[in-house]
Structure formats: C-alpha cells, structure tokens
C-alpha cells in the first residue's frame, strides 16, 4: 500500500515535471534555439548545458534573459564577463515570464531522450544519377542482345556444318568446298549483286547521316554533367529546401554572369548545418576551403578557392548577359537551364547553340506590359502595334552585333 502510494506520487511528480519540460522544449525552440544549443557545444551563444552551475543563481539567469542590456549597464560582474563571448548581443526576452524561463531551464537540465534523429539523414537522396542509371541498363540490354545473337550465329553455323557433313556422308557425295565465314559472305555478295548495291547504298547513307549528327555535336556541351569538387545537390537546396535561385546566384539579376556564390553565402546556413545526407564529408570541404574550425567557430587566415568545374561555357565570340534576360526579359531560369531543382548533379540542359538562341529570339514575345524598361520604347513606336506580337527579333534581337562584336 505504502509502496503503491510512493509510486503513485512519484508518477504524479514525473507527470508534472514532464509537462514543464515539454513546455520548456517548445519555448526553448521558439526563443533560444536560434543562438543556443541545449548541449555544451557553442553556436552563436554558448551551449546551455550546465548553465546553472556557471551562473550565480536561477534568479540571475531570469534577470539576464529578461534584460541583458540592463544587467550589463548595472555593472554586474558576471554579466560583463559573458558579454565578451560574442560580438552579437543577446536579445532581451522581456516577454518571457519567470515561469517560462524556469521551464526552459528545466528542459535544459533534463532534456528528453533524443528520438528518431538519424532517420532523416539516411533517407535523403544520395543517388542523383537516375538518368545515367537508365542509360547503363539500356547499354547492358544491348550488350546482352548482341552477345546472344553472336552465340546464335556460332551455334547455327556449327549446326549447318554438321548437317552438311551428315548429308554428304549419307549421299556419298564429296562435301562442297568449305568457304569459311568471309568466303561465304563474299560468295553471297557475288551471287546477289542487286542486294549488295542496296546494302552499300544504305550503309553509305547511314554513315553520312551519322557523320553529320556527330559533326553537329562538336562544341555542344548539352548533357555535360561533370563531377564537382563538392557533391553539391541543387535537388536538395533549391528543390527540397525551397531556396530561390538568386539567393545564391545573386548576380544573375545584376550582371553578366549568374555567379558562383562565394563561400560566405554557403556559411549563412552551413555555419549551423554541418551534416548532409551523405554525412559530414562534403560540408567539411567548405570548412577546409575557408580554413574554418567548426568546433571553435574561428576562421583561419589561409582560405583556398574551391575549383568548381564550369558547366555552361559560351565561346568568347558570343556575348551573353544574364541580367538582360532575367530582369528585362523576365525569363525564368528554368527556361534555359531546365528543372535544376530536380538535378542531383548540375547539368547543361540546353544546347546553347546559335540556332537555339535565334529560335527563341524569333518566337519569344517581348513582355512589354508592366516593364518599365520598354515603356519608353513602346510609347515612341506606336506604328508597331499592328496586332502582331513584338518578338525579340522585331526589336533588333537578331542583329549580328547584338551578340557578336
């Protein structure tokens, strides 16, 4: 009976405690997690594990959280020491009540057991190679068929050989002279001159056609999908995380090139996110290049450049400007670059040939409406409003010197 009551009361206690810790977790995530971890690892602010051993008292913590600036100004010794931790100031959380702060502290002191942490990391897509996988299977199937056919040829010819020898044995005739594979082919070609001509013609035409196709591909990078020094996935960043293209490729709206983001842009997120679906290896390459120590959060003084492999490359004889197309032309990135947000490895989607440029300039209507760049032009040239769409070609988009000068 007594044991039962002790059990019951401890259960009650546990339940009560659990509730505050749960509230504490929620409050912690909403208010503190942007700068603090509940472990002893530092983020922007210090790790909060063991804070009650370090700080003078719980009351002091409450006061600090509600008004850190006031504590510093009052000349409190401990407040002025921890102020030096980081150049970033701690926000005043005046709206957090004493009870809230106690709940947060309870949560930090007794965090619930971590659950389902490693699951998501493993579930992330690592392949990103579905296209080439299909190509490989196709190749394997063709290889198998070719092998099968060759085996069939060998078997059939040996069957024929044994049948002829059987026949000659039965009839007593001397076996006809064995011609061999090449001999039998030339023999057949000799006997069927007409068919030989047709075959030769077809073969020549096929060869020429194949040659033309191959020649047209010279200098065309379409489908070029080089391996990069860091296995960066647009599928994760632009697709799953919903980060806009120009967040990283800022200069697409401002300059000629779309821009390779400098590493400080990576660090906007990766100062916190140090582990991706393939583990810490790839992200550690950013830290290595920056000479950054993720433990101490300190940058060294010998950063190196990351040598990304250029995917899209126009020859020097052609001028192309991103901002002109993105801002003035209001063209979606995907129109030329394809569904990059689904690409595990960045790939050249369009041929980027002159014919491809010219086709688009002939068919694309200029977006004159609500486009201040064209307002003036639009007003000055009313004669154009003949009902036909104003294509890029009609405003000079096919002039040689637009792109070649």
């Amino acid at each position: 009976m007594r044991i039962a009551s002790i059990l019951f009361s401890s259960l009650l206690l546990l339940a009560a405690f659990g509730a505050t810790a749960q509230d504490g977790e929620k409050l912690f995530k909403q208010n503190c997690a942007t700068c603090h971890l509940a472990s002893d690892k530092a983020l922007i602010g210090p790790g909060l594990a063991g804070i009650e051993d370090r700080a003078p008292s719980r009351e002091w913590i409450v006061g600090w959280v509600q008004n850190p600036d006031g504590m510093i100004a009052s000349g409190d010794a401990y407040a002025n020491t921890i102020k030096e931790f980081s150049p970033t100031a701690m926000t005043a959380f005046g709206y957090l009540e004493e009870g809230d702060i106690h709940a947060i502290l309870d949560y930090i002191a007794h965090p619930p057991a971590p659950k389902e942490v490693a699951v998501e990391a493993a579930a992330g897509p690592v392949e990103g190679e579905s296209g080439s996988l299909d190509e490989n299977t196709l190749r394997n199937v063709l290889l198998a068929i070719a092998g099968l056919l060759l085996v069939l040829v060998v078997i059939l010819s040996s069957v024929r050989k044994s049948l002829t020898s059987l026949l000659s044995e039965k009839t007593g005739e001397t076996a006809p002279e064995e011609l061999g594979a090449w001999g039998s082919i030339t023999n057949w070609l000799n006997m069927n001159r007409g068919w030989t001509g047709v075959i030769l013609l077809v073969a020549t035409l096929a060869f020429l056609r194949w040659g033309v196709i191959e020649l047209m591909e010279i200098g065309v990078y379409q489908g070029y999908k080089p391996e990069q020094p860091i296995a960066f996935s647009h599928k994760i960043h632009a697709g799953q995380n919903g980060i806009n293209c120009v967040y990283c490729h800022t200069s697409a709206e401002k300059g000629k090139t779309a821009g390779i983001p400098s590493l400080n842009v990576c660090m906007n997120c990766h100062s916190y996110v140090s582990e991706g679906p393939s583990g810490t290896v790839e992200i550690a390459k950013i830290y290595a290049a920056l000479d950054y120590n993720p433990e101490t959060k300190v940058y060294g003084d010998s950063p190196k450049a990351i040598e990304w492999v250029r995917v899209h490359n126009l020859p020097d004889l052609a001028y192309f400007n991103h901002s002109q197309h993105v801002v003035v032309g209001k063209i979606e990135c995907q129109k030329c670059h394809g569904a990059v947000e689904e690409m595990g490895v960045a790939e050249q989607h369009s041929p980027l040939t002159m014919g491809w440029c010219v086709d688009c300039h002939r068919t694309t209507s200029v977006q004159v409406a609500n486009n201040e760049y064209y307002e003036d032009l639009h007003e000055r040239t009313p004669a154009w409003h003949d009902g036909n769409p104003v294509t890029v070609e009609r405003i000079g988009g096919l002039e040689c010197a637009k792109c070649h000068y």
Partner: protein
Amino acid sequence: MNKALKYNISLVGAAMFCMVMLISSCTTDPNSPGVEYMPDMYRSPSYETYSANPVFKDSMTAQLPVAGTITRGEWPATASIVNALPYAYPNNLDGYIAAGEEVKSPIQKTETTSAEGKAIYEKMCMHCHGKEGQGDGQLIETGKFPPPPAYNGPALKELPEGKMFHTITYGKGLMGSHASQLTKEERWKVIHYIQELQKL
C-alpha cells in the same frame, strides 16, 4: 543452303547494329564536354570572372573590393551623401543598440518600395522567415534549421528599422550577413516590406 547463308548474314547484321548502338552510347561520358572545334575559343586565354588567376595570391580572378569601397551607382541620386558612406556601426552589441536608435531609412517608404521589397523578400528571406514572416519557411519546415522568431511575435514586433538594417548587414544569431547579396537600397526595401509583416 543459300537460305541458311542469308539467315546467317541478317543475324550478323543485327549483331553489328547492336554493337554500333553500343559504341555510340559509350561516348556520352557525363564528365566530358565532348569534341571542341578551336578549344581556345571556349577556354579563353584571358582571365574570365571565375577562372583561376596566377596574378593574385589566392589564385582567383574574382577579388573582393578594397575595404571601404563605395559601389558606383549603389545609391540613388536622391539619397543623402551620408548614406553613400560605408555603414559606420561596428559589428557588436554597442553598434547594434546605436543603430537601433540612430539609423533611419534614407528612402521614403511608399507602396512601391514595399512592393519591391516584397519581391526581394520572396527571393532572399522567405525560405527561412516564411511567406508571412512567421518563421515557417520551407527550409524550416524540413526541420534542418531552427526557426527564426516571427516578425509579429513579441521578440520582433517593435524592432526598430536600424536594428533590422544592422542585422541584415552583419547577421545576428544564426542568420548570416546578407551584405554580399543585397545592396543597401535593397536592404531598405526589404525592411519596408518587413515592417508590413510586423503589423500582421
């Protein structure tokens, strides 16, 4: 006899066709850009924006501007000369507090500026801060990154514009500096839109 030969030849032909298909599919190596005619037209001997460069110590052509450089045309002609100067508040607590009290938007807030700010916000901020600034952007929803506080929540509802500018410029908490991605003018336009979100 002849028939068997014919059969044989068509088989050989089919096998050869398969081999040709095979060889042609082998040439699509994703790591190779393919054959180039006049490669020096593609791989410029002059230094391009992102090419390696032996002239500089860090081997990059893309160099940072000298500290304190004022970008040409960064400020509209209407803005005062004070705003053309580099941002003078240091990246520390004192700078943050001082910016909150002293820094004011040099651009008149209008419907146009906050509409432009909205367009910038949706590209540069929304994936974390969320469509309506509730700290529930798509990246946050994946659980990979802790949520930022809501603009209309108790922490940020009364945040002065100077502190916002300071935060976008230097970063605060887990938010990094966005000075390399947004010009000062763009930062102020975004702030104009965030002030709308604070009122929600």
